[in-house]
């Protein structure tokens, strides 16, 4: 068994953000976690990456309870378990390659990294990864100079640089326009397919989850209320997860390019007008 989540719980004050989450991942898969805002998706991923400490429960990865790790061990785990954020969380004033190289911070000596000194091989590998994601040309630019979709790909490159066993992605496409969203999701899927890494992604739209994931976990109020393959995710199941009533329309959560394509021109025009305000 690859990952076994056993009763993982997180309590913030009075509020139980994640409530006794239990599931297991047998072999590398692409897993989507869906649920409405506040369902506990982010909190779960953050606990897994050890950005947030869990209140209770175990999360066993290759035989070790990663929730119990401390200090250097914890950081070593973080370096094996890459995280991608909605807002990219790059260092905007540094160049793209340096940002990608940050994926190796845990593996290289503190002193050398502090002075931004990296082995040539590492730099070459970073550029190779960028090339794989189609943004090698941006290598010398500052991260802040890139578009959102490119920045997210830099974040993915940083994750790949970690050569992680698991990639966690917290709403990786929520800040992106449909075009870029597709590019980023394709990249994540390709990483799963080609490298065989486990990818766990929080997604806020059903159709993305259906389209890209092998398995979908639905959360509501901190609990796991759905766990199955995408084809089990009927509209009824979705209503259950989102706690929505009859008016619930999937379109409201959709970001795929196809469904929006026809309206795009008018959309863009309208949005542009609004944005000039």
């Amino acid at each position, binding site marked *: 068994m690859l990952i076994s989540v056993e009763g993982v719980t997180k309590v913030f004050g009075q509020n139980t953000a994640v409530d006794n989450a239990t599931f297991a991942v047998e072999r590398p898969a692409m897993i989507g976690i869906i649920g409405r805002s506040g369902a506990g998706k982010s909190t779960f991923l953050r606990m897994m990456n050890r950005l947030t400490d869990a209140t209770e429960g175990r999360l066993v990865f290759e035989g070790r309870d990663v929730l119990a790790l401390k200090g250097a061990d914890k950081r070593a785990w973080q370096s094996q378990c890459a995280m991608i954020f909605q807002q990219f969380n790059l260092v905007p004033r540094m160049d793209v*390659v340096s940002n990608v190289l940050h994926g190796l911070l845990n593996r290289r000596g503190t002193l050398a990294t502090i002075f*931004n*000194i990296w082995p*040539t091989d590492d*730099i*070459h590998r970073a*550029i*190779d990864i960028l*090339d794989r994601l*189609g943004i*090698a*040309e941006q*290598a*010398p630019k500052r991260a802040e100079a890139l578009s959102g979709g490119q920045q997210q790909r830099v974040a993915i490159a940083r994750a790949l640089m970690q050569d992680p066993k698991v990639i966690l992605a917290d709403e990786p496409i929520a800040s992106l326009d449909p075009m870029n969203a597709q590019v980023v999701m394709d990249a994540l899927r390709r990483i799963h397919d080609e490298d065989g890494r486990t990818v766990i992604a929080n997604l806020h739209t059903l159709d993305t989850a259906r389209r890209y994931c092998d398995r979908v976990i639905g959360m509501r109020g901190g609990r796991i209320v759905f766990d199955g393959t995408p084809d089990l995710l009927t509209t009824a199941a979705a209503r259950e997860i989102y706690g929505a009533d009859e008016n619930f329309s999937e379109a409201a959560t959709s970001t795929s390019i196809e469904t929006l394509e026809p309206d795009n021109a008018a959309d863009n025009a309208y949005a542009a007008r609004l944005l000039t305000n």
Partner: protein
Amino acid sequence: MTMTTADGIKADYMAQRRQKQMYSGLLLIIFVALLVSSFRLANDRNAGGFFDGLHRVLDFPTELLTEALQKITLLPANLARFLPALIETINIAAVSTLIGALLAMVLSLLSTRGLALWPRAIPLFRRMMDVMRAVPEVVIALVLIFILGGGPVPAMIAIAFHTAGALGKQFSEVNENADLKPVEGLASVGGSWFQRMWLGVVPQVAPNYLSYALMRFEINVRASAILGFVGAGGIGYELKIAIGWGQGRYDAAAAIFLLLFLTIVAIDQISSHYRNKLVKGH
């Protein structure tokens, strides 16, 4: 993407990185060399060396505190005695901040592109502010002491003059970020320059103005204490006499020192509190 382009990018990037590292290394070396050599130069030109004197750093404070503690019973009386001088110092700072800020407001509006009443005169007002900023307060204060005699007024004028220049620059930076649309709106109804500024610009920039002015006030309290040292009245003057005399008056020095310290800390805290409030929430 083919490998050859990636290889090209690698080579380019490595070259660029090497160059950047060389520059930063060079810069670092220059910086460190400059720092070390200026330390050595200063050390050489000083009467006592840094390392020789280090163990004596506490001599003076010890001397002062010992006497102050011996006469601790006199502290309340001393505090009361020097309170008027402290108030004078604070008054100097407050008035000069006030007058300086008003002047700065006018100067900054006159020297901001898009707002200036006489656009051609912008460089003139800018230079004016530069000079006002560059002249040390002590120079103006001493000249004025010569003409007006001692007391708070020379210090007040000196600080106000400097404040006008310093705030003027900060204010005009704020002005430059002000939205010109309301100003144009007021121009379109036939508003005069004064109305455009007062109704169109000032409401936008007031919080930032206030924040900067408060910070200046804090600086000016120190400045007015320093000017007291050269004979411009206030608590600095009392401190200089007490400390200058030495043993026998260290209790007074300690009391003045305490007053000054508490005031500066208090003003610092109050103004940073209000500044945070002003800038963060409207």
